């Protein structure tokens, strides 16, 4: 098991490295290839004329005067060691590990921006995922045990409807009804969990429901299909032939096998969501990573875009790693192959 985890960790490290190369190539190299200096995107204002002393100084400071491989190494090593970033006209910032750059647009280090946004995204993704996992698996299990029953038919029509409605519809409708029409919840903005748990909860409930809605429907359908397949397996027949009570047959023998593939999908969905809840964040005015990435793209704030991309990618890689390990914990056959 330990060897398995070490192998997966090494694999994850390789993936993170590849992500860093791809991010570098796309965001740092692409403007260079089109004979444009990327400096503009870094200093957030018109750079000095090309060929001037100031321009050359800036180019040197950001490493653009070096050969390609050295540029990558310079960019990568700058993440790990402390240095000072300057836009050449007086504004400077000292940057420590993990140094993802400095946004001269927002006058803030990128890592600070991400540290502010990450808890919002995490709260949103984790809370919603718990909701949809519990709801989806519950509906899916009951449906899968009695396919063709009234519950199953109503449930499946309901989930099909839920999958079809986009968040930018359910979100505002929820806000309109729950907050403005019925006034069940106050119109509050996000507060960190550590500072004001009550307000954090009040501000997150609707985003959770809106985000979980579509996912719950998807998971209900997945669980139903897996459950139906598992209940037809020979080992379920064996469990019944042993004289086990139905609940033991369903939960211990059926559900555990049926949920295994769902665990994998769940971890990956959760990892993906951390950087991509753009619509939900926009609808509910939450300043998470999705909002941050949209903002930085709009203002062409390259260091922020790169930082968010890398953090989102690392979140996905970590989620995959956790999925792999959980799979091995659940299914003993995986550990040894």
């Amino acid at each position, binding site marked *: 098991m330990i060897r398995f985890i070490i192998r997966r960790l090494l694999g994850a490290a390789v993936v993170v490295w590849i992500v860093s190369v791809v991010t570098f190539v796309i965001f740092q190299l692409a403007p260079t290839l089109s004979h444009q200096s990327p400096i503009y995107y870094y200093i957030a204002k018109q750079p000095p004329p090309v060929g001037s002393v100031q321009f050359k100084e800036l180019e040197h400071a950001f490493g653009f005067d070096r050969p390609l491989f050295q540029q990558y190494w310079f960019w990568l090593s700058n993440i790990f060691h402390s240095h000072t970033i300057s836009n050449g006209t007086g504004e400077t910032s000292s940057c420590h590990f993990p140094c993802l750059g400095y946004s001269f647009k927002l006058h803030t280090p990128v890592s600070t921006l991400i540290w502010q946004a990450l808890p919002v995204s995490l709260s949103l993704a984790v809370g919603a995922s718990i909701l949809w996992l519990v709801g989806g698996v519950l509906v899916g299990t009951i449906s899968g045990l009695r396919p063709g029953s009234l519950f199953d038919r109503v449930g499946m029509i309901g989930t099909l409807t839920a999958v079809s409605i986009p968040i930018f519809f359910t979100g505002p409708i929820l806000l309109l009804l729950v907050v403005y029409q019925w006034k069940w919840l106050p119109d509050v903005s996000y507060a960190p969990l550590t500072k004001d748990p009550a307000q954090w909860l009040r501000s997150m409930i609707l985003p959770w429901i809106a985000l979980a809605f579509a996912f719950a429907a998807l998971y209900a359908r997945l669980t139903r299909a897996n459950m139906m397949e598992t209940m037809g397996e*020979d080992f379920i027949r064996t469990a019944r032939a*042993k*004289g086990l*009570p139905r609940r033991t047959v369903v939960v211990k023998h059926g559900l555990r096998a049926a949920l295994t593939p769902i665990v994998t999908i769940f971890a990956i969905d959760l990892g993906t969501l951390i950087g991509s809840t753009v619509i939900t964040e926009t609808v509910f005015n939450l300043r998470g990573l999705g909002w941050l990435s949209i903002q930085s793209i709009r203002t062409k704030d390259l260091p922020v875009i790169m930082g968010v991309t890398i953090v989102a990618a690392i979140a996905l890689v970590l989620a995959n790693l956790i999925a792999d390990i959980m799979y091995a914990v659940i299914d*003993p056959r995986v550990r040894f192959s």
Partner: protein
Amino acid sequence: MSDPREATLGTAAIEFIPESAPDAKAFLSVRDLRVHFPTDDGLVKAVDGISFDVERGSILGIVGESGSGKSVTSQAILGLHTGTSAKLSGEIWFDDKNLLAASEKELRALRGAEIAVIFQDPLSAMHPYYKVGAQISEAYLVHNKVSHAEARKATIAMLDRVGIPNPAARYEDYPHHFSGGMRQRAMIAMALVCQPRLLIADEPTTSLDVTVQAQILELMKDLAKELDSAVILITHDLGVVAETCDSVVVMYGGQCVEKGSVDQLFYEPEMPYTWGLLGSMPRLDRTRQARLTPIAGQPPSLIQVPKGCVFNPRCRYIDRVPGNRCKTEHPELVETTTKGHEVRCHIRPAERRQIFDNEILPSL
């Protein structure tokens, strides 16, 4: 562990003491059992009116091709069709209880404890996520009020009894760690850990290496004798039947077409289908290198069962019956001149014996 039998019985012997003199009265009696499955294409008559008895301590073989209704019959005895679309009728008497009328709770108390099954493919029949030992203990725990430690002890003793070396260590292994033969041994341990009175072996050796098959059969036979369990052995292998069983039911198209003792079936078979089965069985005890004779044609559709005798489309002897009765009239299961030997065939008994002696026997 000087005497493995003592270790096996252990605490369970208190729960169930085998009666000293097994009486010959049938304790399982299946009467006119029908299992029908409604499907979109029509009603599948998987089992259509089958009757047989199993006597205490005896071994009954049920033979037939794939789809002849063997496994469906065994699952009906366990009540495993509840919760499916299957329609069951008839009676299954186990002691004085009709299992078809019993509640799910009553059936659950019998399953595993009184009636246990060894399934065909032990790899898919065991749960891949649980340790082999835990799966056997689970069967023991559900029917015996004992601690986990005691269940573990009983399981290890049973694993030892079925010939698994180093049983305490193998208890902790998962099914995929076992070889095919060992897995089937573990399956037998799982079935016998509660010392059931009836053991249903559903093609227990089909997925096994030929060299292992004989060992597994021998083990099953020994254990059944030791625990005084009756056995229903479901198989398509007549060689296995000849070696193992006391009596045989031959199934074809969901019906019993011939039944009797092993000697009757092998030395005086009267039904053309049984002749076909015997003719298609490879034998090593004959010097003559005759070719095997397959039965021409396909097994019948269970939705549109042939009119008349269910075997008539494949039978080579329908012209021996006047008036085309084989295709129009459904033959009854009738006792032959020998007691306990029943055949479903329109051909007159004297003629049947004549055909067998003159045409079938020489080529076997």
